[in-house]
């Protein structure tokens, strides 16, 4: 059938209007946090002139980098209908193990094995991340264990492993190659920001335009249907889990450079923030819905809150309270902005 003719003979009057409408709504969903961001900026501007300085905003952006990578990872995993709590430990344990394999076994307070040359630290770190993801994937997909608890167990286990390997110390003398990305600046903007922006852009477009990206949505939406449509569900999900841990490990590299050492509780307790950011950003916990852009707005919201509160000089005692309150308010605003129930 010649398409052209068909397309003309298409929908009737009442229907014609609605595609845009639906479309608008779908788009809108990802923008639902934008109002919140605007409100925050207004407040920020009101409380301190320092807020709108590039210095401050770049600072906020940089502080957001590590978290945003975890959020990126978690979004991919959630969209394909899974969860990974262990990301918050991977960000810590991967660098520690990498450095442990690289550092000389004498001299410094923290003694490594010195098995590999210094430049190998980054590849090793990423490798460790990939392995962690692969093991999680094995337990979840092959042994069919409950993903939530597997990764919860992994969270504890990996944190414990980090403490054991690093003997609870924060590791200060780290190979320069390892810390470069986290501390370098390109064109006056921290390298980490460039990298995260790039990663979000690339992954985001992959999700939007590539078939393997679309596959995640199909799997998250209804894995049985995806399977019947010829998508290799388990393989894709496994890949996503590995990719997620890989990103977490990379976040660990940025973190180490950013904060100058691998601290023993690097990433400890972040997973809550990760989920908060992802979900107020419009990614569904049931899989199949959400975009990376939305998730990104989620991270920025959380980070801006901290920044504004600090600038406003909120009394420390009320800090945490406000933090929680703002999450809920943001949730309410975004829910009514997008007009969708969040099931």
């Amino acid at each position, binding site marked *: 059938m010649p398409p052209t003719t068909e397309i003309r003979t298409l929908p009737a009057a009442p229907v014609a209007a609605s595609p845009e409408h639906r479309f608008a709504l779908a788009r809108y969903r990802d923008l639902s946090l934008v109002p919140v961001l605007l409100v925050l900026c207004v407040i920020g501007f009101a409380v*301190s002139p*320092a807020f709108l*300085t590039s*210095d*401050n905003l770049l*600072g*906020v952006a*940089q*502080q957001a980098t*590590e978290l945003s990578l975890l959020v990126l990872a978690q979004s991919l995993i959630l969209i394909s209908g899974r969860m990974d709590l262990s990301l918050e430990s991977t960000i810590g344990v991967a660098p520690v193990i990498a450095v442990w394999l690289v550092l000389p076994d004498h001299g410094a*307070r923290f003694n490594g094995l010195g098995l590999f040359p210094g430049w190998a630290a980054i590849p090793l770190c990423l490798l460790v991340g990939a392995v962690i993801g692969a093991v999680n994937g094995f337990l979840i997909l092959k042994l069919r264990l409950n993903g939530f608890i597997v990764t919860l167990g992994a969270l504890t286990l990996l944190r414990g492993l980090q*403490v054991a390997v690093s*003997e*609870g*110390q*924060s590791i*200060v003398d780290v190979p320069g190659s390892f810390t470069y990305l986290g*501390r370098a*600046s390109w064109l006056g903007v*921290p390298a980490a920001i460039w990298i995260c922006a790039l990663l979000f852009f690339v992954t985001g477009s992959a999700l939007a335009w590539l078939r393997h990206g679309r596959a995640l949505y199909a799997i998250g939406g209804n894995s049985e249907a995806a399977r019947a449509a010829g998508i290799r569900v388990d393989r894709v999900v496994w890949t996503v889990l590995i990719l997620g841990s890989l990103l977490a490990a990379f976040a660990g590299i940025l*973190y180490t*450079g*950013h*904060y*100058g*050492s691998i*601290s*023993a*509780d*690097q990433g*400890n*307790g972040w997973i809550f923030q990760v989920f908060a950011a992802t979900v107020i950003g419009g990614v569904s916990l049931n899989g199949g819905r959400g975009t990376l852009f939305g998730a990104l707005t989620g991270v920025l919201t959380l*980070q801006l809150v*901290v*920044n504004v509160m*600090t*600038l406003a*000089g909120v009394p*420390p*005692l009320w*800090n945490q309270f406000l933090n929680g309150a703002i999450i809920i308010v943001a949730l309410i605003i975004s829910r009514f902005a997008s007009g969708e129930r969040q099931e």
Partner: protein
Amino acid sequence: NRGSDADSAGGKPALGIDLPRADSDFWNSYAQYIERDAASQGLNTLPVSNSQNDVTKLVANVQVFQNTGAKAVVMAPQDTGAIASTLETLAAKKIPVVSVDTRPDKGDVYMVVRADNKAYGTKACEFLGERLGGKGKVAELQGALSSVNGRDRSEAFAACMKEKFPGIQVIELATDWKGDVASAKLQSTLAAHPDLAGIYMQAGGVFLQPTLALLQQKGLLKPAGAPGHITIVSNDGIPAELKAIREGRIDATVSQPADLYAKYALHYARAAAEGRTFTPGPTDHQSTIIALPNGLEDQLPAPLVTKGNVDDKALWGNTVGK
């Protein structure tokens, strides 16, 4: 197996030792000293436990000590309230308790071994105040609001500043003992107050590296004396801090004596098990024992370390792990 040799080991009374946490430089150094001293003094210790900064685990562990025949218990309850009823139980069972680093709010203790955290705050305040000539802005990286030690340091620091250096504006930043939070808030503060003159970090183990990394990135890490230098006072006295002092990256730290903590914790535990008693007053190791409503406290000296005395061999930070 272990439980039984508590009584069998050459009549030596068994000591139950709990470590508060394994994930911080300071407490790991403490753990090392405990291990070393226990060995060197040939003490009979039950397997050392770790309560992962969770009082419920601490209580569980102490319970095990009771059941495995501990004659004295060394603990460092980070939650000074929730240990109360456990202390009562131990008292009822006539098991003396040595509390390291923290002073339980309630319940009898045989001896509290700690340096005075209020003194930390005051020392830091005085040092900063003098360096800054009594004016300027100081950022204070506080710990978790639920931590007694953190609170003592904050209160003392605030009180001292208010009284002695009213000209100095203190910006309090609650960090929940998290390095990244501290860095984020400090960065915001620097944006708001480019003229920041001083920083007081309540825990070098957590805050030192993030702060230095931040200042370096912002090009604010000027050597002491140079214009625009930000005066930094830290706390803990871990090796990294001493190194930083030598390199002139920070100005001072309060050395919280991990070695003495371990040494005298064991000392008093042993004494307690052997039934010896102590009275308030100066001790043989440049410290004073003071009386508490619920026991005694040996306030160990916590020297302020500056470029001047940073190489002092007496500082635990210079000897640990060597």
